């Protein structure tokens, strides 16, 4: 089983965040806020099952969604930030290295 770590980084402000992999909900939390001293709102380790080829992130109250294709060799990390204008979710599969 592949492991994926999801980092919700900048721009979260008391948000309801829903994350699914395939049809499975892996995160459904309210009050998610970025802590700017570590530039991080939430870290989540996700175990991926066979055939789960898409990560879906939504902030339903803000009408924001992002989809990250996982493919046959999924990334180790998915990082997500709400854009500075608050109108989209930017994602990246680059290693974040760490927070401080």
């Amino acid at each position, binding site marked *: 089983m592949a492991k994926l770590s999801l980092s919700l980084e900048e721009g979260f402000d008391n948000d309801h965040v829903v994350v699914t992999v395939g049809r499975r909900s892996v995160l459904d939390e309210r009050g998610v806020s970025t802590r*700017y001293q*570590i530039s991080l709102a939430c870290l989540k380790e996700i175990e991926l099952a066979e055939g789960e080829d898409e990560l879906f992130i939504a902030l339903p109250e803000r009408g924001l969604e992002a989809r990250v294709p996982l493919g046959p060799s999924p990334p180790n990390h998915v990082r997500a930030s709400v854009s500075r204008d608050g109108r989209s979710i930017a994602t990246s599969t680059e290693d974040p290295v760490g927070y401080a």
Partner: protein
Amino acid sequence: MTSPADPSADRNGSDQIFAFDTEIAEEAYAEEALSDTAPQEAEAGLLPLPQPLPLPVPLPFSATSGRYVYTRRFNLPPVPIPVPLPGPRPIGAEEVLTQDVHAAALYQREEIQFDVDGAFPQMMISGTRSSFLSTVGHWVARVTRVAPGKYAGPIWYRNGTPNAIPHTFVSAQVTGGPLPASRKVSITFSGGGAASFTRTYAFESRYRRKIEFEYDRVDDAVAVTTVNTHGHPNRPVTLPNETLSIETVFRRAGFHATVSTGSGSIPINVAGPDALWTDQEMHDAMQIHWSRFANKPQWAMWVLFARLHVSGTNLGGIMFDSIGPNHRQGTAIFSHAFISTPPAGEANPSAWVARMRFWTAVHEMGHAFNLAHSWQKSLGAPWIALADEKEARSFMNYPYFVNGGQAKFFSDFAYRFSDSELLFMRHAPERFVQMGNEAWFSNHGFQQAALHSNPDFELNLSTTQPGDRFPYLMPPVIEVALANRSGRAKMLSGARISERADFTLIINGERKDPRIWMPYLRHCGEGDDRVLKPGEALYDSVIAGAGRNGWDMAEPGRYCLQAVMQIDGEPVYSNQVMVTVQPPSTREEERLGGDLFTPEVGQVISVNGTRDLDHVRDTLAKATELKDNPVSQLAAVTLATPLAYTYKLLVTEGQTVDEEARQKVETYKADPAAARKLIKQAVARGSGDSLINAMGHTRFLRDAPLVAALTRDDVPNSAEAFSTFSAVEIGAADAAPAVPLSDGLRAVLAAKADGLTQ
């Protein structure tokens, strides 16, 4: 056009000369830490060896930055009667009082942070005015060095009680002996429509505040509080080789940092059975283990060195205290997080890890000073709009976030905070910075190098002389532009900029006290309101060298000019222009100085001529003969202009007591032939362009119809007949064979004609 003065040009000014080590022992160590560049400069042979100097002497001969204090004595009445400062001053010069008559009742004490030399000088002076009970006002001025030990510049930031700080400009002079205890700073506050005053502050400390760090280490963790700066070979080539402590980093940032005697170790079981730390567990541990814990604002911080946070190895450290009413009191470093894992192939793994742990410790402690990440300066609630500093080589940036990654970051990382961070730590209102005070991420940071200026407008000063250099005798002419940068149409007064009551032009000579330029005339009326479209500007030209104060820029030397005006109740600060007045190049110039630098000549040039005052006209006639000096052109125009029309002169006769004063009007006939001859000669001394530049663009535009009329036969009979003009008439002026202009200058004048103030 002159570009705005680069404040960084003075950053490494030559006044950081030698650090005397004569302080009390406690501060002596810190002095060494602050003046880290001094030994290198001494080695370079540029600097004299320290030796006792007679008192009093002008500073600086050592670093003068630090905290200075003024306290009003109790035996003075609440609002003392101001006394003008002793010493001669020119007739008409502004009085400089010994007391702040505007806000004196509001405060008893003022503390200033003087930041012009030593480690990473920011060229700022800030002050806090307080009464017995509270802070009433805080100001910050950006200054430039105008002479040894002398700094001046505009106040760009104010906070606190309205009217506590009405002035807009400060000029500071350092005096005193080699011992810091005898050092003083005198500051003259001026501008802003308030009476100027001068106040002297006594030296207290090289630092803004004392601060105490308590380092507690959990049994299973590694604490790194020093680093060998040459421990890892990937570093700036110029980086001094030293064992650098966390305390020294903060001393260089302006704080007298010491380590608490309560520092020690914490048993691992405090973290709970999993040995991983949650934020709440750390907050609890802080209350138990920090010997100074008080849950109140204080200059003290608890630093926990632990092994791992419950979030895992992804978290290298955290300023965990955004809990409860008093934030930023405690911070933690996780020695075994990712910061203990060097990149694959790293050739110096242990040095890499040591450096990364040190970086993390200072980074987390920086958050406790309310510093945001470099790339997030604009987020949250910065004190004023901040720019992100994504590529900053600062403790507050993630090394692996910059272009080129951590290797590139450390290749030019000098173990320091950025200028905007130092500005904030040293000069922001104390409560924004102090631990346990302002909430985390609220009022963090200070915008670097930006004046708190009305953002809708840009006020620009420039000169038309190459390099802003003016030959001796030529009064510097400053071109002023006020542009609408708001992106929308703006309504504002069309009154002549230089004559508006809220326009202040400050002249700072390197050898003179700063002076506020005073116009000879103020035309009546406010002027009609003007609608300025986005990007449009109003223009004016100012003969800054001559004004009601006399000749403020007669002496050769360097002068810094800056203006401020109020629009919609907010100040608009101009750029600073450094103007050089050259020494006399000939005996004739030197000789003529005595005749030319009189109040009457200054006034006649400013108001564009007279048919009266023979001795003034004789002097101007001599000036027209000078070669390679635009003053010859200015003098010629000054002589020619009143010849262009029938000149009426009001003459008062009989000024003795016995004789009743009688007034009569003398009429002088126009003499266009003589005027034309003067203009023709003046153009021949340079060019049409140089003549217009010598006059000042808007001064020419206002008189252009006069000059144009010189080619016409129908000489009008009064100056008022020319009082209206348009771009078409400018064209007429251009067509006048007397003043042939280049296409470039013609375009400039056409633009300025559209934005000519009344």
